[in-house]
């Protein structure tokens, strides 16, 4: 619709195609509009977004830092060790929430859109290259990850029995780089899952992939603390979990939020950047593969 004008008492639309804008300009405009669309949908679904974001971290800190101390089951030993555990858990919970946003905000809707609804077609026909539609999904997912972290952190930091003294030490430079990096990485992971799994395979995604990732993802303990789990002098668990991308997120937040020991930052950053690149690559390829034949 090129212009709308009033003619003979009623509005008349004149269809007169304008010469196409350059690919770059059209793509940038469409990209911004796609993001806006995702944020509008987020606003409309806040009633789902907030419980799904808040509940799991809340339950984790509630059980470990409130119920357990109350019933005399202290995790990590009493006193100072307990305070340390609390700090470890808060960092882990923030990392876990961002990871879950990647799954819930990117992977699951995408599985649905590729599946029976096919509604992604409409956005694929918007005037921008197909790969940028996938990037738009990652950016929108990452924004949701950041919002999730912002909601979860205060909850995780507040819910505990008074006896547990949570001592957080915020390293701002680490925190402010870790937040976007982790959010993008997890959203890209979501894109990879979303383009590789069919609707009927979602239970497998949760049962076989997400579950071990979260349990062995350093949420409840620090990676450095795994060293004593050994067979024949080899810290096998500590080695195996290195393949789990969530490890670097939770260790990263441990480095950002606590004074406790953590995996060295010179390992965390490059590995996370590498995972970002890998997941973006697999995700974008998967996306192209799904929408173009």
């Amino acid at each position, binding site marked *: 619709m090129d212009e*709308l004008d009033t003619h003979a008492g009623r509005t008349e639309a004149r*269809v*007169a195609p304008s010469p196409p*804008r350059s690919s770059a300009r*059209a793509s940038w*405009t469409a990209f911004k509009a*796609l993001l806006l669309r995702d944020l509008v*949908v987020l606003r409309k679904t806040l009633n789902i977004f907030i419980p799904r974001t808040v509940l799991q971290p809340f339950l984790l800190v509630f059980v470990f830092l409130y119920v357990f101390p109350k019933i005399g089951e202290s995790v990590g030993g009493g006193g100072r060790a307990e305070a340390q555990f609390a700090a470890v858990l808060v960092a882990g919970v923030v990392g876990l929430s961002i990871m879950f946003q990647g799954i819930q905000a990117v992977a699951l809707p995408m599985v649905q859109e590729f599946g029976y609804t096919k509604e992604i077609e409409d956005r694929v026909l*918007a005037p921008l290259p197909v790969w940028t539609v996938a990037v738009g999904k990652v950016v929108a997912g990452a924004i949701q990850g950041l919002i999730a972290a912002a909601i979860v952190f205060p909850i995780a930091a507040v819910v505990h029995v008074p006896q547990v003294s949570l001592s957080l030490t915020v390293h701002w430079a680490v925190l402010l780089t870790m937040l976007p990096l982790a959010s993008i990485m997890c959203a890209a992971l979501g894109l990879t899952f979303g383009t590789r799994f069919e609707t009927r395979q979602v239970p497998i995604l949760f049962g076989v992939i997400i579950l071990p990732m979260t349990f062995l993802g350093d949420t409840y303990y620090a990676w450095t603390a795994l060293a004593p789990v050994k067979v024949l002098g080899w810290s096998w668990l500590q080695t195996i979990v290195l393949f789990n991308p969530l490890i670097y997120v939770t260790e990263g937040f441990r480095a950002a939020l606590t004074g406790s020991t953590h995996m060295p930052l010179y390992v965390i950053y490059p590995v996370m950047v590498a995972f970002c690149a890998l997941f973006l690559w697999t995700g974008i390829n998967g996306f192209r593969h799904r929408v173009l034949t």
Partner: protein
Amino acid sequence: MADPQSVICCQQLSKQYPGGILAVDRLDLSVFPGEVFGLLGPNGAGKTTTAGMLTTRVIPTGGRALVAGIDVVAHPAMAKQLIGVVPQTNTLDRSLTVRENLYFHGLFFGMGTKRARAAADYLLEQFRLADRANMPVAALSGGMAQRLMAARAIMHGPSVLFLDEPTAGLDPQSRIALWDILGELRDRGPTIFLSTHNMEEADQHCDRVAIMDRGRILAMNTPRALKASVGADTVVIVTTAGDATGLAQHLEQGVTGAMRSQMVGGKIHLHVGGVSGVLPQVVAIADDQGITVTDLSVVEPSLETVFINLTGRELRD
């Protein structure tokens, strides 16, 4: 050879899917500005693949496709600005309301917020969806969803509008309503590319029709010229429980003006020049042969007849 000045231009366009299926086989095609062009063929003929290639969603394995002079493979983002698509399945954004579906489509295509809002409201009015503007799209009936997709497709003022089986799955009333709207649209300028297996639709609404089967175009002309190419004025369709092949031969020889007969799906299709007095002759000849005719009908040659002539098969098989 395809004309490079046309709005849609395919040159030796081919698509072979992984696994070896050749869906579209060296297609040459030109569609001219303002034309309503129909691609008619049975399911699996390659129509949707052809439309898919022209709308950048299917990557050709050979040849070239230009829309408004833009190579759709080399510059998809540019080409997508110039096309509107009414797809076969409901691809409305279920997370958004009816109005938002149009509004965001406008934004995707570079409209300002104010203009997108005005255009959305105008189209909702025009497509008789205004009373549903704030409902989720899940609340729309099939016909309404299709109207909304048509509104969405024209919103950004495309040069070419692609309609892929637009009325498949619609009840007759919605079908008529949609064509009323599409009929208004065609007066306003965009070239329309329709793919359909519905021969009445192709006949009624298209300026030119290409008949497609197994990835190839078999004939391309105006519906009138295509039908005239059959050469007959009447097609008599005879169903019999007896020896159909034998009866067909007798009819060809005995009926005045009979030109040829074909066996289609077990029925005799007898092409006759001239109309009057045909049926009594058919019944008399069958009686003479002692063959019982269980059903008898007379039709004018249609695009279906053309298709049968070209392929020996019915359009819907």
